[in-house]
């Protein structure tokens, strides 16, 4: 709207360079004005959304517990060669700082952090806390070793030293079922802690199943909606859009009512004599995939529909008139043109499926919980925020990579709602 002010009495020798600068300045003002419209939302999203997520990513490698409570022990360990049990200086600093953590009630916190890498460390820390509470003074090295010979373990002290570093790869490695031993070499984690790769593959597998199911169910429906006259298509479109706008919780509740063992579907199966006893349809993989497919189906249908709508029906007729059979015409002329829609719909459903939490939590069994569930679990129950953040960081990375792919292939500005 800002128009470059032209020189009022411009003679024939109008200064071209000055006009150019003025135009450029006007453009710059215009750009700044456009940007000032975008800036409030951008700042809001960066401050309330991007910044907390960034801090969560830092939390995935952050390592504050030991560094903040036992700085002198860590400093003493700096001079340790790592060959044999550390000397009295380390033990004295350790005992001193244990007295403080006992006062602050943080002994268990430090013990829990070490316990991640040295099973059993937490209870040993609590016992050591009681030992220093008893008082009596040093030398502490002998006292600790007498209380529990494990205090002499070189591995333990190596891990303790590492736990004092500013950052740790521990949580990220654990999320990938890897572990760093006392010497720093990365290898497989203990079998009883190696659960996360399975969970990631399960998440991807369930998302793939859901994507495939929505494609198989949705493609014909999208085709039907695209070829029907608008009057009929609009009515059927309501059947797609009504579930779309209905709350996910409502739909999940509906599936629980339908699928539970004394639920409606089992009643029907029994009444039709299809089964003789009630079938377990819920709290398993079947129920999870079914309910998720129901929720995601409109997301797959709508992009496919909008692409199909733009394919002229004359293409199919032309193929037929040139001698192609109905199947050949459909497969070799129609289907390739629908691929952009198929790609957009499937990718969208796959991305959204990866982040599912509520539906599997309500209709799935313990073996159907996806990564999101464990992010919530480690935040709320286990209070292991490093692990929650690391799992979240990996899930976020996968999601954002697919989002970038989606942006590249489809363009986020092409997404339409309703």
């Amino acid at each position: 709207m800002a128009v470059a002010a032209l020189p009022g009495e411009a003679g024939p020798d109008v200064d071209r360079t000055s006009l150019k600068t003025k135009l450029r300045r006007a453009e710059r003002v215009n750009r700044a004005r456009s940007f000032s419209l975008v800036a409030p939302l951008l700042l809001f999203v960066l401050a309330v959304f991007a910044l907390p997520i960034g801090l969560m990513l830092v939390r995935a490698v952050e390592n504050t517990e030991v560094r903040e409570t036992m700085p002198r022990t860590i400093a003493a360990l700096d001079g340790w060669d790592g060959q044999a049990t550390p000397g009295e200086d380390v033990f004295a600093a350790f005992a001193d700082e244990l007295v403080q953590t006992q006062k602050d009630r943080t002994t268990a916190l430090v013990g829990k952090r070490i316990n991640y890498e040295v099973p059993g460390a937490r209870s040993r820390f609590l016992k050591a806390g009681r030992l220093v509470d008893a008082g009596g003074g040093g030398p502490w090295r002998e006292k600790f070793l007498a209380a529990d010979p494990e205090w002499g373990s070189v591995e333990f002290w190596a891990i303790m030293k590492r736990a004092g570093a500013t950052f740790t790869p521990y949580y990220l490695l654990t999320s990938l079922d890897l572990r760093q031993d006392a010497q720093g070499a990365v290898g497989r984690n203990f079998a009883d802690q190696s659960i996360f790769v399975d969970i990631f593959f399960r998440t991807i597998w369930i998302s793939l199943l859901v994507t495939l199911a929505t494609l198989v169910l949705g493609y014909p429906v999208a085709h039907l909606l695209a070829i029907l006259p608008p009057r009929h298509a609009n009515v059927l479109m309501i059947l797609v859009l009504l579930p779309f706008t209905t709350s996910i919780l409502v739909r999940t509740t509906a599936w629980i009512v339908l699928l539970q063992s004394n639920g409606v579907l089992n009643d029907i199966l029994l009444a039709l004599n299809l089964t003789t006893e009630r079938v377990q349809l819920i709290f398993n993989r079947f129920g999870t995939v079914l309910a998720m497919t129901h929720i995601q189906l409109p997301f797959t249908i709508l992009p496919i529909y909008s692409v199909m709508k733009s394919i002229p029906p004359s293409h199919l007729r032309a193929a037929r008139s040139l001698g192609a059979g109905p199947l050949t015409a459909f497969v070799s002329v129609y289907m390739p043109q629908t691929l952009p829609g198929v790609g957009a719909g499937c990718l969208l459903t796959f991305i959204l499926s990866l982040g599912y939490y509520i539906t599997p939590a309500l209709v799935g069994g313990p073996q159907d919980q996806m990564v999101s569930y464990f992010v919530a679990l480690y935040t709320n129950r286990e209070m292991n925020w490093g692990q929650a953040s690391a799992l979240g960081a990996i899930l976020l990375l996968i999601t954002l990579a697919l989002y970038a792919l989606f942006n590249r292939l489809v363009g986020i500005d092409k997404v339409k709602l309703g």
Partner: protein
Amino acid sequence: MLAPSYATPREKLSYFVFALFCALVFLFLIGPILVIMPLSFSSEPWFTYPLPGLSLRWYIDFFTDERWRIALQNSGIVALFATLIATGLGTLAALGLSRGNVPFAGLILSILISPMIVPVVIVAVAMFFGFAAVGLNNTYLGLILAHAILGTPFVVITVTATLTGFDRTLTRAAASLGASPWTAFRTITLPLIAPGVTSGALFAFVTSWDEVVVALFLASPDQRTLPRQMFSGIREQISPTITAAATLLVFFAALLMLTLELLRRRSERLRGTGG
């Protein structure tokens, strides 16, 4: 109706199978919602057909029980303010981006849309940590800000879609006739993009109204919203009061959809692109 007139009998049969398949998929889509609604009118607290008798007791329960009443009220408050923030900021941003001269517009748009893509648990946990540091956990403000973030992508998308068909010469004409930018916006741009703004606002409202994960992390029992109340109910034991709440929400959704459709038609009429 589906098969072309030149179809052979075998083709007609395949069209029939195709139509039957589609009918089953439509049943799959709408069936669960239709099944749950009558159960909310049952006189007994179990979920079986045929219904043992009709009653409105679960609706009475829903509207008289203190917990549901507070949840309804909280949902209303949070959704209203979240919608106002999301619609205001989202509309401004869409207007700015549509002027076509914002540097890094593609990147900015991706960032603005990303709250729709990032798994909601990550949003919830990140805000739980981040808000704790500034004392926003367990406050209405925290929940409103979080829900506003989740709603903005919808506003940006719908308003941008309306603006792609917007004829810029109209505002230029207004300006050349002496209208200030604000007058031109108020009298020309705003009425034309109003359908897009309203449908974006409706999407933002529903996003907050239905949101449960963020509410689980950020809200204390004082800010308990309707979905959160439903969630804890489903976890323990599905009471028919939940099906009554669900039925009311379905009607709400249907009403919303109707409004969106009317808005879409109005927008097409205003832009002269449709019948």
